[in-house]
């Protein structure tokens, strides 16, 4: 489903190369974990997947369902099924969360040539999804992410992910800022999305989340490259021995 080939990317503003020859393949139905120390380029990779213009791809390609997405803008990538749960979700003052959900869902439907959702159907979907994530409907009347706690923001990201039903989900540090109860709820929410036609990429630098969302593959990202790949035991190994060993091998 996702194939990243020898990707090189730099910051447009100052030309610093952040992604330096990265290769990664994730199949439909697969849950892949990307781990790595702070500053290794995990968030940057997620932004590049989603089409952020601050980065320029200088070499390599990103194939999604066999097609390059490099020419697509963020909205086109989103409507084609790519979703990014942000490490730091943005606040949108004055726009009620409900309103935002409605616009996003209907814009995606429009792009697919579907009718906008009728209000009762929309409300039902939101209520069901919010209940699963143990979210209060009153919160959804507030402007999106404005004054939300760290944990609330992360839940709101997963809520959006559930409602938009993407095919490629990228979760950037969704576990940070969540207490253990919230972590369980969010993990259940993510697990419920596991499906044969959907790929999930989980970015984290702790093993903790992977106890709840058990990955099919684990990849270590360091200095803009995948330096090691393995199965879920790799995550346990990293937890026990730190990144030093893996990084040392790579260096």
């Amino acid at each position: 489903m996702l194939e990243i080939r020898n990707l090189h990317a730099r910051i447009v503003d100052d030309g610093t190369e952040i992604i330096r020859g990265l290769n990664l393949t994730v199949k439909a139905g697969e849950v892949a974990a990307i781990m790595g120390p702070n500053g290794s380029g995990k968030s940057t990779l997620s932004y590049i997947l989603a089409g952020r213009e601050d980065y320029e791809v200088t070499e390599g390609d990103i194939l999604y369902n066999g097609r390059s997405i490099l020419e697509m803008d963020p909205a086109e990538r989103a409507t084609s099924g790519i979703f990014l749960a942000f490490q730091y979700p943005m606040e949108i003052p004055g726009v009620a969360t409900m309103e935002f959900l409605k616009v996003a869902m209907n814009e995606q439907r429009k792009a697919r040539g579907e009718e906008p959702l009728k209000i009762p159907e929309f409300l039902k979907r939101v209520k069901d999804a919010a209940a699963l994530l143990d979210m209060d409907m009153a919160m959804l009347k507030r402007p999106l992410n404005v004054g939300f706690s760290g944990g609330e923001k992360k839940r709101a990201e997963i809520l959006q992910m559930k409602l938009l039903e993407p095919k490629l989900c990228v979760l950037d540090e969704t576990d940070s800022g969540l207490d253990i109860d919230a972590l369980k709820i969010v993990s259940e929410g993510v697990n419920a999305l596991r499906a044969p036609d959907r790929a999930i990429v989980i970015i984290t630098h702790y093993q903790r989340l992977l106890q709840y969302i058990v990955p099919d593959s684990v990849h270590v990202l360091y200095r803009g490259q995948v330096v090691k790949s393995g199965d879920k035991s790799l995550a346990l190994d990293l937890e026990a021995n730190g990144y030093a060993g893996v990084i040392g091998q790579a260096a």
Partner: protein
Amino acid sequence: MPAVQDTIDRVRKIDVDQYKYGFQTEIAMDKAPKGLSEDIIRFISAKKDEPSWMLEWRLEAYRRWVTLDEPKWARVHYPKIDFQDLYYYAAPKSTPGPTSLSDVDPELLRVYEKLGIPLREQEILAGVQKTDASELEEASDNVYKSGRVAVDAVFDSVSVVTTFKKELAQAGVIFCSISEAIREHPDLVKKYLGSVVPTSDNFYATLNSAVFTDGSFVFVPKGVRCPMELSTYFRMNEKNTGQFERTLIIAEEGAYVSYLEGCTAPQRDENQLHAAVVELIALDDAEIKYSTVQNWYPGDAEGKGGIYNFVTKRGDCRGHRSKISWTQVETGSAITWKYPSCILRGDDSSGEFYSIAVSNGYQQVDSGTKMIHLGKNTSSRIISKGIAAGFSQNTYRGQVSAHRKATNARNFTNCDSLLIGDQCGAHTVPYMEAKNATAQFEHEATTSKISEDQKFYVMQRGIPEEEAIALIVNGFVKDVIQQLPMEFAVEAQKLIGISLEGSVG
């Protein structure tokens, strides 16, 4: 809901250039020769069958106007206007003063339909009244609940249709064209006309006093809550006619009225001049709410054409505990020069100004308000949201002053500007002056650029760039949108989106 959606769809379909209302209607016009002179003023006055005192009033204003110079202090630039090269009177040639729908030129009704704007009003014009509960329920998705709006439509210079007159009359409310008021209610007009904006007030107001052709008149008597929203749609049609409306609204003791003004004008290469005067008078315990959605032709992508909008709007809180509230959504016009103001004369009176001014392309906006505190314990509130895109310049100009005797005057001002792109400008020019030590004035101002982070986030949810910007901008102006009557809120949001089209990419 259906009506509003309908309108929006219709507006979208009328796709002439960027400007969705750019078409011209072929209706026989009755007009005065070009230029301005005492004779033209006599012509206008005669056409309108005015009493001699009105003619004298106009002539006096004209004589003063010829001695005045155009003001230069606003941050707007435009080639000199040749006031002798304009037509000052143009009336659709139709049966004068139609009283029922069948009297109205069908072409005119088609114009309204094409405009798509007066949606419900059209229904109302057609005698359709929304009372069906199920329909109202469907509409409850934050659109409109009242479904009842009385319209006074100004087509170029003459008020064409006034609806709901009967029901209003039962309540004792007078809602008619100013020309009719001059004939039918001369005492009221004499008493109040020019009492807030005197003929000598400023260059454009003086010009307006000399040549005004039509506008609305509202009188709500003591103790009456006007049973419906009153609404006017202005539209300029004939080439090279300046439009000079004159609106006068009076709320007597304890009265309440909410008035909506909507404006639109067809697309043209040359600039059209518009210089209206609006006067509001609130007596003891009265309240007037005046809302405007202005989307006149802003000119084309190169800045050619568009309306020059030089407007004087002022409310006089003449009575104790009276209240006047201005809400405006300004998206159109090539040049906007407009400062709806409140004179807080009565003790405990209050004034409000809520404004959204969107500029794109080469538009120039210089708008704001004046809050003049004269009485004791008066308060005012100013919320201004300026959005500049393209090559536009957007200035907020505000004045808050407390008179020597205005003890405990309070003002809160919040002025936020949002920039889209880096070719446009936003400017804030606040003046504050307190001659009484007990005055408490608070001023907050921010200028921000639309954040790339926010835009990326919104687009990542599948919302295309222009819609993403419209969404963020609508969030930014939420505080003001909430002040609009339900009927206008949704429409205003769509208009903001439409007027920002082409601001990116």
